[in-house]
């Protein structure tokens, strides 16, 4: 049991003595037993919460995955179709011209064409 020895502020000594007298040595066996039972319940609750979270995540995944897969497939298909038309554009004379123009702008901005 800790004893009170440190009082950095002004305090009434008579009241201090009264509080010291009132401090009891309490029987601990029943308290500790009851605490251990409570801790075990808390541990069980924690475990159940974890299991529930995993089950919930599993259900969520099962529910959401088909729509995610369908959306991904649609996006991939759209990108594939787009890239086919971009591919045709890139190998056309206009595509070459635009590519060269972009390259020229990049060189200009990096200063590679500047005289030293």
């Amino acid at each position, binding site marked *: *049991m800790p004893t009170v020895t440190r*009082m*950095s502020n002004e305090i009434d000594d008579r*009241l201090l003595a009264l*509080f010291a007298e*009132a401090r009891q040595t309490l029987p*601990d066996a029943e308290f500790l037993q*009851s*605490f251990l039972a*409570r801790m075990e319940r808390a541990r069980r609750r924690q475990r159940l919460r974890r299991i529930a979270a995993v089950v919930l995540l599993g259900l969520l995944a099962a529910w959401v995955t088909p729509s995610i897969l369908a959306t991904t497939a649609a996006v991939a298909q759209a990108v594939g179709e787009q890239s086919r038309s971009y591919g045709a554009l890139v190998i056309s004379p206009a595509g070459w011209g635009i590519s060269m123009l972009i390259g020229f702008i990049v060189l200009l901005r990096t200063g590679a064409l500047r005289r030293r």
Partner: protein
Amino acid sequence: MTPALPGGALAAANETTVVLLAMNGDDEAYGELVRRRQGAIRNLLRRLTREGSLADDLAQQTFVHGWQSIRALKSPGAFGGWLRKLAVNFWLQHARSSRQEVALDEDLRAENPVASVSRQLDLDAALAQLPSDVRLCIVLAYNEGMSHGEISQTASIPLGTVKSHITRGSARLRELLHAYGDAHVQ
């Protein structure tokens, strides 16, 4: 990672070691901490609640919460203060949830401050006459030996308020105990 201690060594180990073990998930070490600290926490809560069973219930909630969140402790040396703060928070939570009941008690006392007090007045009964914030400051100062600054931090009450609560609370406590002929305060 702190290695576990062999059986029986826990009781002899210093508190820092035991706290470190508990912070690493050693439940036996935490049990040892509960064994060492239960008296102080239960006494503190008894002064605050005046009811042994309620105090023990709040003490158990404190220790269970402590077990669940001990990994959040910044340093092993802070364990005692941290636990005391948890206990105070549980008591404040309880006091707030039963505020209506307290307010009713205070109204009755205001009508007849001395006559409504039981003849078997003791320190806890006198403490029960104080408003909860004042009681908290008084108990932390006299029962726990905390300075005004420490009380301000633990109870989240401004320093000036703590000082005034302790001055007014001490005077009121002396007055109540004197009214019932307590030789200690005459």
